[in-house]
């Protein structure tokens, strides 16, 4: 449905363009013929050529923009401005039909309001700031009131400054020359004020815009600036010389520059259409450039390059976990629109695939991204989803190991503060009881108690070893170096500790490194080794733990060690009698 109505609107615009062409050329004929004395176009060939080019450029730009952006108002505004642009031609028709002359005079007043609206609404077609909305409304209102006042009260025969239509005003109700003159003065200074306001709004927009937006704004806004300058010059000139004489060089130059400004504006619109087309083509080419197996994130950089916005970011939507991730599956914040960043949701098959955050001023990104790019986006989204799951899995694996280690530390502390203390107290009581029995001469009981004391001491020793095996307190308190030294002193094989890091690492890293060595030494002992060399050294962002022994070839896969190292994103290399673990430590 939407497509049909778009097509219909485009046909209407094309027709309007054709009509405008005929109408513009007819207007030229009028200006060169019967209006020769009262129009700039009639007075100079250059003015004529520029005036016609300017009007037709607006029409062409309007139609082209409409085709490129069927939903925007910019094309229609340009088309309408093109029509109104020729109004003075008709108004200056000496001896022409009074109705046409009167209508021409009224319509001519709307050329500047339409152009102001066009500049301010560019590129989206909407007036985004309050200032712009107020300005455009005021300009239209003033033009309407002025037109109404002039139609009702201005009798051209009583107007000494009349040159354009000294023949007729069919709407005249009552001739009030003073009122008419007042309206003309008001128009003059209102136009100058509008021009100043337009300039400041445009400067403000440029100042706030991102680099990307500025690039889109410039071509059209320069036209706006020149137009504003010309309007002010025109007001000043009219104030000094109340008679607007199309042969006066000052007025002619103002007219010529005005035409150039309008041509510039129209060219700016055409340039925008052309660059949008180029951009769409380069976006469409992305997929071909990506190849069969693009690396995660290459779509983002390709799109950023095609659009010309290095800050462009794609956030993929994962419906299952209801969050956004980047191409590598890392969680990202939901992109939000700001004054300089726009957010375009991309949908495929009715489902949200991703959200693109880009510079404002890249209009219609949603439309620019064709089906092929959308498919590529969906592929990358799936890849990102898998990577995100992998990431989650890795994190949960790390958490499991860390939880285990925390539990081990707690267990060790509980043993130390609980069971060990109670056993100590018990052995004290046993000893005291033994001493008492001995004092009373009950040697049998004393001997039994003495034996119990010995048992308690053995239990204490075993408990101590157990606690040490669960989690060595020295590892937490003094770090890997001292803990490995202690491990070596109690090891069942001769262990030589080479270099160990003096610095401390996060607890999970130290614990992993410690248990890698502990398990590897046990494994070496099981394989009949008499000697093991251990070294731990930081290599860039990794803690590298190495172990070599003189035992028989390894048969165990060292699953525990591999799990522990893997949980921290590290790597384990196992050879028959050597082992090397790399644990990320930064």
């Amino acid at each position, binding site marked *: 449905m939407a497509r049909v109505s778009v097509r219909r609107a485009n046909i209407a615009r094309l027709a309007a363009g054709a009509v405008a062409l005929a109408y513009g050329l007819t207007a030229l004929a009028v200006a060169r013929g019967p209006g020769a004395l009262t129009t700039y176009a009639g007075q100079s060939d250059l003015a004529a050529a520029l005036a016609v080019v300017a009007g037709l450029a607006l029409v062409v730009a309007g139609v082209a923009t409409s085709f490129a952006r069927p939903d925007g108002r910019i094309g229609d505004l340009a088309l309408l401005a093109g029509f109104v642009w020729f109004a003075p031609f008709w108004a200056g028709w000496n001896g022409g039909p009074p109705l046409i002359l009167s209508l021409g005079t009224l319509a001519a007043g709307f050329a500047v309001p339409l152009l102001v609206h066009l500049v301010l609404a560019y590129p989206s077609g909407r007036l985004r700031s309050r200032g712009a909305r107020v300005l455009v409304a005021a300009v239209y209102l003033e033009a309407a009131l002025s037109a109404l006042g002039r139609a009702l009260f201005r009798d051209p025969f009583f107007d000494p400054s009349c040159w354009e239509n000294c023949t007729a005003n069919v709407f005249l109700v009552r001739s009030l020359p003073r009122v008419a003159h007042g309206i003309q003065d008001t128009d003059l200074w209102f136009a100058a004020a509008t021009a100043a306001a337009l300039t400041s709004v445009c400067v403000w927009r440029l100042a706030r815009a991102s680099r990307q937006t500025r690039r889109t704004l410039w071509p059209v806004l320069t036209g706006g600036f020149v137009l504003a300058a010309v309007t002010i010059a025109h007001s000043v000139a009219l104030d000094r010389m109340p008679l607007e004489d199309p042969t006066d060089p000052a007025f002619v130059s103002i007219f010529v520059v005005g035409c150039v400004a309008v041509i510039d504006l129209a060219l700016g619109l055409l340039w925008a259409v052309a660059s949008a087309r180029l951009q769409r083509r380069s976006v469409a080419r992305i997929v071909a450039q990506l190849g069969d197996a693009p690396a995660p994130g290459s779509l983002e950089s390709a799109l950023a390059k095609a659009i010309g916005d290095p800050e462009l970011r794609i956030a993929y939507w994962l419906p299952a976990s209801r969050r956004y991730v980047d191409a590598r599956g890392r969680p990202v914040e939901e992109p939000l629109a700001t004054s300089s960043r726009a957010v375009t949701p991309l949908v495929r098959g009715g489902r949200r695939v991703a959200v693109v955050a880009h510079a404002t001023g890249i209009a219609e990104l949603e439309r620019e991204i064709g089906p092929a790019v959308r498919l590529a986006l969906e592929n990358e989204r799936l890849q990102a989803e898998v990577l995100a799951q992998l990431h989650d899995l890795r994190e949960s694996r790390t958490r499991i190991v860390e939880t285990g280690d925390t539990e081990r530390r707690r267990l060790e*502390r509980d043993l*130390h*503060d609980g069971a*060990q*203390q*109670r056993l*100590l*107290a018990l*052995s*004290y009581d046993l*000893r*005291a009881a033994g001493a008492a029995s001995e004092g009373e001469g009950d040697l049998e009981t004393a001997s039994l108690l003495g034996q119990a004391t010995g048992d308690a*001491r053995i239990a*204490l*020793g075993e408990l*101590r070893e157990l*606690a*040490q095996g669960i989690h060595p*307190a*020295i590892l*937490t*308190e*003094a770090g890997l170096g*001292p803990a490995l*030294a*202690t491990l*070596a*002193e*109690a*090891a*069942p*094989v*001769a*262990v*030589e*500790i*080479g270099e160990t890091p003096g610095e401390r690492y996060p607890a999970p890293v130290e614990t992993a490194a410690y248990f890698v060595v502990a398990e590897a030494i046990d494994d070496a002992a099981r394989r009949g080794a*008499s*000697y093991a060399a251990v070294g731990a050294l930081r290599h860039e962002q990794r803690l590298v733990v190495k172990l070599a022994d003189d035992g028989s070839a390894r048969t165990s896969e060292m699953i525990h060690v591999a799990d522990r190292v893997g949980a921290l994103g590290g790597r384990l290399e196992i050879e028959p009698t050597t082992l090397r673990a790399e644990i990320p430590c930064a």
Partner: protein
Amino acid sequence: MRVVVADDVMLTREGIVRLLEDAGVDVVAQAADAESLLREVRLKRPDAAIVDIRMPPTHSDEGLVAAQRIRTDHPEVGVLVLSQYVEPSYAMRLLEEHPERVGYLLKQRVFDAAVLVDALRRIDDGETVVDPTIVARLLGRRRRQDPLAELTAREREVLGLLAEGLSNRAIADRLFVTERTVEAHVKQVFLKLALELNPESHRRVLAVLAYLRDERSS
């Protein structure tokens, strides 16, 4: 002898206090954390402080830190650190700065009144006390080329007692030999192990422990 006892576990602390009082030692103050321990030592000026290695707030090495503070601030006060860890590095840390008048004993041993009181007396005499279990672990460590194999059984025994911090006289008493014989053994041990320190020096405990822990001797 006047001592201060510091241990955050009341059960253990009171056990130690009763044991000491039964043995005729005057316990002048008790403390449950390092801060009150340091205050009591400052106020009571005891002959020695018995300090649990693990005390609040972090239950890590507060006792060890407090012990070092006491040795620095009050050189005349001896310190006996009690620990549940057979951890030579802790013992070394304690001895490193002030090797005299300090001791590191495993906690389970202190319920033997004779051991505890003997340790206190040795500390009071200016000696060093290192728990035999720690020394045994260091001596028993597996070594690839064991320089200790060069020692005779008696020399090994002397080395162990040296490491425990005994004076030549105490070693002589323990082994039922003359002090002269002990001196000869000590010289021999130092010679065989290529230890350069003067065997008479009071820092020899530290030297022997360091030697036994040293990688190159394994």
